[in-house]
């Protein structure tokens, strides 16, 4: 990094608010799914809270993201309203997508969440297109493509990085390297010591950063976003992290190394950041407790709203296929 970026105190607390929202939301999701009150495939992002929180405090509502099936943290950090998200995951007509997309396809253009894909590696080519539109129109928007370490082995990753570099698109590629692609360890599938190294092939900066360190993540994100916004082209950020609840909620993590998950959970980045903020005097215990209880109330309302909302009508099967309904 050419210069150090330090978040303001307000940005630090804002990052915490986003991280706490993701953590508390995840805890509530898992409880509600476990209780059988909502039936949905759930790819928990618990453990990866820092990455989109640090990215999103550097973005505005005008900026776009494309995310993936493990993307609830990216959506919440970008500002998708909790109520609408819950209603979508419950498959209700009041959801972001009228219940027609579900957790793997949340879209909320008002907050800049333009596409959520369930196909590994597909966020990057579409993010390029969002960035292309901004470039053609001369807008100052930035697009962030989120994806996992597994996606760095798909052809679309390479096609997309090459095209973005050739055209100097205002896009930031954020690889959330949680060290497993589905059930398979990184080194079994990836012929690169680090994914960030691949950026060199496409003549763009490639940065590996501790994605669980809010200050490092903030600095890397700000550098890349500023660069994109200035018209200097794309950056690949590889943010190192770990997922606490396996690939899909309910998986038994038997493929993981002994003690690996426990060690990662012992380094939980959310309480660590909370303690640091208080220790450093950036926030008081009561400031943060207030944030947490406001989130808890918001979640109470969201769960009630989702569970009490109506299912979509069957007529929705014919709507939104084309602009006008085909008989």
């Amino acid at each position: 990094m050419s210069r150090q970026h330090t978040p303001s105190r307000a940005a630090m607390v804002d990052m915490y608010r986003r991280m706490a929202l993701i953590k508390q939301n995840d805890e509530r999701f898992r409880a509600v799914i476990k209780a059988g009150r909502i039936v949905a495939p759930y790819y928990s992002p618990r453990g990866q809270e820092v990455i989109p929180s640090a990215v999103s405090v550097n973005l505005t509502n005008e900026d776009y993201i494309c995310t993936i099936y493990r993307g609830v943290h990216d959506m919440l950090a970008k500002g998708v309203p909790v109520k609408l998200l819950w209603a979508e995951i419950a498959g209700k007509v009041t959801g972001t997508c009228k219940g027609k997309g579900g957790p793997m396809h949340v879209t909320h253009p008002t907050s800049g969440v333009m596409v959520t894909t369930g196909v590994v590696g597909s966020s990057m080519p579409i993010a390029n297109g969002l960035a292309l539109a901004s470039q053609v129109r001369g807008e100052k928007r930035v697009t962030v493509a989120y994806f996992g370490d597994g996606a760095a082995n798909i052809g679309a990753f390479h096609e997309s990085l090459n095209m973005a570099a050739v055209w100097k698109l205002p896009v930031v590629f954020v690889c959330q390297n949680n060290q497993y692609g589905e059930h398979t360890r990184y080194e079994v599938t990836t012929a690169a010591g680090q994914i960030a190294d691949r950026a060199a092939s496409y003549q763009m900066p490639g940065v590996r950063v501790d994605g669980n360190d809010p200050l490092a993540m903030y600095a890397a994100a700000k550098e890349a976003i500023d660069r994109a916004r200035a018209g200097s082209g794309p950056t690949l950020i590889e943010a190192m992290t770990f997922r606490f609840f396996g690939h899909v909620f309910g998986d038994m993590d038997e493929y993981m190394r002994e003690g690996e998950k426990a060690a990662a959970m012992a380094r939980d980045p959310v309480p660590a950041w909370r303690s640091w903020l208080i220790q450093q005097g950036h926030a008081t215990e009561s400031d943060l407790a207030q944030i947490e209880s406001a989130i808890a109330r918001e979640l109470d309302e969201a769960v009630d709203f989702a569970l009490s909302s109506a299912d979509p009508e069957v007529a929705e099967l014919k709507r939104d296929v084309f602009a006008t309904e085909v008989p």
Partner: protein
Amino acid sequence: MSARKPEPSKLNTIQAVNLALDEAMGLDPSVILLGEDIGDEEDGGVVGVTRGLSSKYGKNRVRTTPISEQAIIGAALGAAIVGMRPVAEIMLMNFTAVAMDMIVNHAAKLRFMSGGQTHAPLTIRTMTGAGLGTGGQHADYLEAWFAHTAGIKVVAPSSPADAYGLMLSCIFDDDPCLFIENMPSYWTSGPAPERGKRIPLGKAHVLRPGKDVTLVSYSRTVSDCGAVADKLAGEGIDAEIIDLRTIAPLDAETIIASVSRTRRAVVVHEAVKPFGVGAEIASRINEALFGQLAAPVQRVGAYHCAVPFSKRLETEYVPTHARIEAAIRATLG
């Protein structure tokens, strides 16, 4: 000072599509082009469909791309979601296979999956067709793949004028459109289109009225149907020809109205016959008119094999006039 050049009375499909792209770009700054070799520095496309457009509208709007089909469609799709009207060229229809995830899982489905919050008004131009000795990976008609996918319109013009009017409609349509250009007939001239006149999507065209049998076709085989119909007219067999223009959504109404009069139908397409568009049309006719038909619906398509190289085989692979004629005679009993 010279007088303004009179508009030509004839155009070929290359010129017709070029004219439509040019007019669309002139009308609307959100129309942009992406594809391999499409800029003038690269010759304006492998057959020259986009020639002149990068010089006229600039490289910001006419983007020569890497040979990266997923990235091409992804870029067009992302831009379309936020209000551009991109026209992406996938040089050959077989290469759409490389971009199927972007087309089928994303472009076609985003309107539905987002509950109508986003949509993708992009047009994918692609060329194909047997007859040039290009063998098994450069000439397939794969429209059934896309017609089978909810959310994408599939358009296949049969003449230069139709190519012009349908291309304009695709560009300004709010849904993703796949636009199929027949390569061997690119250089065949036809009457020039009326400037600015768009041909509606989803509406078939009764090209030739008749009372004895209905021929349903699209793309290059429409002209084959015409040639066979001319021949049979000499024997007093009066064939009606329906040019679908748009394969999906299918204008079943026009087909059913015709066959309810003629009571006989033959579907002709260059795609392989099994599981093809012809099967769908035959089924629709049966569902609507079972009991009123004078004969089973006939289908004429390519052999169920890869497009062959040998001229002898390639000539027989596509629906020949003899096979079309035999199918018509089979309905006449």
